[in-house]
């Protein structure tokens, strides 16, 4: 699965979404905290949400669209679409872990000032859910501008989610369970949706 993900996704995509963005956000969060204080936490959170959503364009942009680009080479190979399915699953599974690293780094200044780790964990789960769910919309578009627009909507939703999580931090356990279940369901349904799109791409009707 890792090999399929490595080969079927562009090396620049992997480098940017898995390394450069987390490092950039980490540096931004640590420096920005001196000037913006706690506001930087929310700002960093919005940037992560945007980066997660837009970044997918460079990896699997538009693959759910009818007559998607690049499928013919895969379809003419016996295991082509199976490998694509594995790469897609890996891409979905890597998101929560990647987000955990992003948010944890961006949240260091927040925690240093006595912020609750519970809020960080909730933020990770909220972002992971939205990142996975957003794929079901974004992958129908191969126009980057549309992806930016969708990214803005998802960032707003993520921010609202974060504010609500902060409000209800006393009920962390309940929220954690609910969000973890939502994340698992979102991963399963998104993967099923992608597999279904690959299958229907062989058919015109």
């Amino acid at each position, binding site marked *: 699965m890792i*090999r399929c993900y490595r080969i079927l996704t*562009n090396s*620049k995509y992997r480098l940017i979404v898995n390394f450069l963005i987390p490092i950039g956000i980490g540096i931004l969060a640590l420096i920005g905290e001196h000037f913006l204080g706690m506001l930087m936490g929310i700002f960093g959170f919005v940037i992560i949400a945007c980066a997660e959503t837009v970044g997918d364009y460079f990896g699997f942009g538009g693959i759910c669209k009818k007559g998607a*680009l690049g*499928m*013919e080479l895969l*379809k*003419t190979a*016996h295991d082509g679409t199976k490998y694509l399915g594995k790469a897609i699953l890996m891409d979905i599974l890597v998101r929560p872990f990647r987000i955990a690293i992003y948010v944890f780094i961006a949240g260091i200044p927040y925690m240093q000032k006595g912020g609750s780790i519970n809020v960080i964990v909730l933020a990770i789960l909220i972002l992971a859910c939205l990142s996975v769910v957003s794929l079901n919309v974004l992958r129908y578009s191969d126009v980057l501008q549309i992806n930016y627009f969708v990214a803005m909507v998802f960032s707003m939703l993520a921010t609202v989610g974060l504010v609500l999580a902060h409000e209800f931090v006393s009920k962390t356990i309940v929220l954690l369970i609910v969000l973890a279940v939502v994340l698992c369901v979102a991963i399963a349904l998104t993967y099923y949706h992608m597999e279904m799109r690959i299958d229907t791409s062989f058919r*015109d009707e």
Partner: protein
Amino acid sequence: METSYVVKGENIRKKLKKFELNVQELKIPKGFATALIGENGAGKTTLLNIISGIRLDYNGQITYFDKYNDKDREKNPEVKSRIGYTGPGRYYLPQWTVSDIEEISKLLFEDFSSEKFHMLCDELAIFPEGGFNGSKKSSDLSDGTKMKLMLAGVMARNTDLLILDEPASPLDPLMRDKLCQMIGEYIENGNGEKSVFFSTHNISDMENITDYAIIMEHGNIVEAGFVEDLKEKYIHIKGDACDVEAAKQILYTISTNSYGFEGICLAKDLDKLAGMKVTKEIPSLYQISVAVMKNNTKLVMR
């Protein structure tokens, strides 16, 4: 010598909104280059997509290499590994670089040779600077260069059947000549085991390597046969203006001007031209194809 077939199809049907593919019988001879000719929208790409397994929603039976059916094509890895396909446009993801394409091809096809791929990239002058530039993105390549890259990719494998959808269209005349050379060498090196099935609008350019021709119109095969046989079946006729009206009743297709007429006559009708002052020539595949298409088209020809 009895001809064996690399692909045989029966009652291949596929219905789209305003189009229906209905191929009663399809035969692609083994060890030859077969051209699929037809107007835009005749169903050539649909048929090639069905044969190569890119489209699965169709009815009918297809047999590959005399032993596999279309279900085997999806289940048995050997079938697709023996078939190489290139198609226009939607082949690679635009963000893939040439190195990505090489890696992906290695993952997808066990018999893909990187060494051969590099050699073909160099031979086809895919990179203007020469050699091999793996960091080049496929979306940065022109249509012609993209086709060359697809050909390099498919030729770097060890296949028995090449299915090429419009390979000549984006290529310059020199590269078309090179394409003919490559197809010729592929068939020659296969000792009668390797076959090529390609669609084309560039009939004249591809004629010298075409052994067998299939002409499609409105989703049906309207003519098929070895080029040599077709050249015996159809005769190119030229005649004087005084015989135009009589010739119109006999010829398969005819075009007239103030000096006379020319057209295609079926060999079996040749006797009916007795008494007319006509010259007979062996037609080119281009002339035969245009005549057959003219006789079946919905285009208004003047």
